[in-house]
């Protein structure tokens, strides 16, 4: 029996040897890499078209006719005129706080905005016009973008969460 106990123990130890990130949390977590929520600046939480921004954290990309749309993670959409792919030209930036996903059809842009699914008429990008808004119960960015990560729990009294930042946390209480 002793021989088997040793082998069982050995296999259990090997089972625990996964690479970072951990796939099972242990609390208290100590000092670990994890996500913390980014809360909205209430004065700039609405949708607006702004002059072109530099790319900082590009997310998903989308092609629509001769336009190239590039999501800026949690911030909005860079709009490029890509008629000549050798020379894409920045047209501007559609600010949509919290945005991750976008689709476009018949000059109407569909995007997530602070937990809502909005439809925005963009036939004139300089003057976007919101035409419908539908709340989604669980889109409020209440969880970080990656699985198997510690994170600082969301404090809803601090406002809507518009994004997540990977940083060093001390004894985070949440894991997903």
């Amino acid at each position, binding site marked *: 029996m002793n021989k088997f106990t040793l082998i069982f123990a050995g296999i259990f130890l090997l089972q625990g040897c996964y690479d970072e990130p951990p796939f099972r949390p242990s609390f208290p977590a100590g000092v670990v890499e994890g996500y913390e929520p980014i809360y909205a600046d209430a004065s700039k939480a609405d949708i607006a078209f702004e002059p072109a921004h530099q790319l900082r954290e590009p997310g998903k990309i989308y092609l629509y006719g001769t336009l190239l749309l590039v999501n800026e993670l949690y911030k909005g959409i860079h709009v490029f005129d890509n008629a000549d792919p*050798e020379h894409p030209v920045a047209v501007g930036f559609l600010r949509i706080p919290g945005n991750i996903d976008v689709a476009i059809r018949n000059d109407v842009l*569909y995007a997530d905005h602070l937990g809502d699914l909005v439809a925005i008429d963009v036939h004139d990008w300089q003057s976007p016009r919101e035409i419908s808004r539908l709340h989604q119960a*669980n889109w409020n960015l209440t969880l970080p973008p990656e699985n198997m990560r510690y994170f600082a729990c969301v404090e809803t009294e601090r406002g809507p969460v518009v994004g997540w930042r990977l940083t060093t946390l001390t004894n985070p209480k949440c894991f997903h």
Partner: protein
Amino acid sequence: MRGRSPYLAFAAFLILLIAIHLSSCSEEAGESSLTGKGGSLARFAISATHLYAVDNDEMHVYQFMDDGSISPINSSYLGPGVETIVAMGDKLYIGTNYSMMVYDLSSPSNPTYLSQYSHFVGCDPVVVQDTLAFVTLRTSSCRPGTVNTLDVVNISDAKQPALLSTYTLESPYGLGVDGNLLFVCEGENGLKVFDVSDPRNLVLVKDYQNVDAYDVIPRSGKLVLTGKRGIVQYDYTDQNNIRQLSTITIQ
């Protein structure tokens, strides 16, 4: 009895371990003049006539009105852990923590459940071309395991997907397919281009190590790639002479 039960218990334990290891590991919107073309998994997907959104454990179906606004039609319960949805061809692919569910869109306002592939899960990007699904299975922050792969799956029978071939990758992310060329993003390990003329025997055509590749959209001979170093565009009309066109840099 006493002599044999430890062996049986040990054997059963080994089999269980192996089974766990084996089982655990391993986009686009239709192109038309009306709709855009995206390359990634998202929480909503559109067809020419409807929008489908996943919201925790539910799917909401919306109709496009004449002015482009969306109007709710119905909602259905999908199950726990739903993360992503993508519409390709006449099907919806809904990714969860433990599987990819396939829904039929023959009746667009009422997606009908067809089958599940437990082979790959919601955080695994997948693209479909005709009867083939190409999917990258990534271990980092997606699932426990040790092997990152590209899998080619025959889905001509939606209820019986058949794995045709599998290839080891380094750190796969998004992918895109156009005709016989499959573009696979490998994060900081670059971009790989495969010829998929024979789905049982993919041939690596090009391996760009010096780009950071997170997602791609191939369209009509032009490729748009996004990654940590910026948006890079290529011309792939001649697969033996794929050339870079431009870069939009990151500040």
